[in-house]
C-alpha cells in the first residue's frame, strides 16, 4: 500500500511522551526564568537602621516607631505596603502595594522605609 501520509501513524506513544515532556520543560523554564522581579522578603528601616526583615510568605503587620509616631507596615503573601503613617503628605501610603523586588516606599518625615528584596531587582543600587 502506498503510504497515506497520515501523520498520526508517525507519532508513536513514546514520541507523544517526549513531546509532552518537551513542552512541560519549556513551560517550567519559562516560569522559572521569567518570574524575574518577584520579591522574596521585605526590609523595614527606621532612622537608617534595619528595624525588621520579614519574608513575604504570611500576612502580618509591623508597627515601626519614628520621631512622629508609629508607621504601620502591612505584609501579605507576595506584597507589602505602608498601611498608615503619621507624616503630613502620605506619599508612602499612597504608593499602595509594592509587588516587585527592588520597590521602595519611603516615609521621610518619620524616617521609615520599606524595601522589597529578591533576585532580579530593576536597578543595581539606590542612594538617597
Amino acid at each position, binding site marked *: *500500500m*502506498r*503510504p497515506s*501520509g497520515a*501523520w498520526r*501513524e*508517525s*507519532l*508513536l*506513544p*513514546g*514520541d507523544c511522551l*517526549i*513531546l509532552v515532556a*518537551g*513542552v512541560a*520543560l*519549556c*513551560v517550567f*523554564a*519559562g516560569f522559572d*526564568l*521569567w518570574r524575574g522581579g518577584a520579591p522574596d522578603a521585605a526590609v523595614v528601616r527606621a532612622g537608617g537602621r534595619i528595624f525588621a526583615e520579614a519574608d513575604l510568605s504570611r500576612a502580618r503587620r509591623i508597627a515601626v516607631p519614628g520621631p512622629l509616631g508609629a508607621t504601620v507596615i502591612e505584609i501579605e503573601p507576595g506584597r507589602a505596603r505602608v498601611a498608615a503613617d503619621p507624616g503630613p503628605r502620605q506619599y508612602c501610603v499612597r504608593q499602595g502595594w509594592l509587588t516587585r523586588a527592588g520597590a521602595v516606599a519611603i516615609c521621610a518625615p518619620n524616617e521609615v522605609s520599606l524595601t522589597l528584596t529578591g533576585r532580579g531587582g530593576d536597578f543595581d543600587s539606590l542612594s538617597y
Partner: protein
Amino acid sequence: MTRSVIELVPTAEDRRIARHAAAAIALTVAEAAIPLPLPGVKPGLANIVTLTVLARWGWRDAAWVSLLRVFAASLLLGQFLAPGFFLSLAGALASLLALAGAARLPRRWFGPVSHSILAAFAHIGAQLALARLWLVPHDGVFYLAPLMGGAAVLFGLVNGLAAAALLRELAFRGENA
C-alpha cells in the same frame, strides 16, 4: 621516471554519505535565505536528512552526514570559523550524542519524532552553553532558553514527522522497486 598515480576509489558507502550530505547542505543553504525573528532559532531542515540516514544506515553515517554538512555549509555561506560556525558545530556534536542514545530506545515506541525532539534539545542546550561560556558571558542568554526550547519542540516535531514521512515513502519505493 615512472609516474606514480594515486587513485582514490570511493566505496559505495562514500557515495551514499556524499549524496546524503549534499542533500543536507542544499537544505541548509536554502534555509539560510529564510528570514528569522531570533538569532539561533531556525528550522534545521537538514536534520530531516540526518534523521533519515540514522534510521536507514545507522549512527556512523548520520554523524558523517551531519558533520560534513556543518563544515561544507559554513564554507558555502562564508561562516567558516565565525561564531555561528562554532555554535553550529557544538549543536551538531551534542545532537549526535543525543541521537546515539536515542537510537537505542525501543523502535516500537520511539520513532524519528522522538529522535528529532531529543536532538533539538541537545542542540539548543549546547548552543546556549557555548554562547554563555564564550560569546555572551552573562546569565541573560538563558532568558532565551524557554523560547529556544519552544522552537526545539516545534521544529523537532515538524522535522521528525517529515523524516518519518520520508522513511515511509522510501520503504514503499524499496518494496516496489
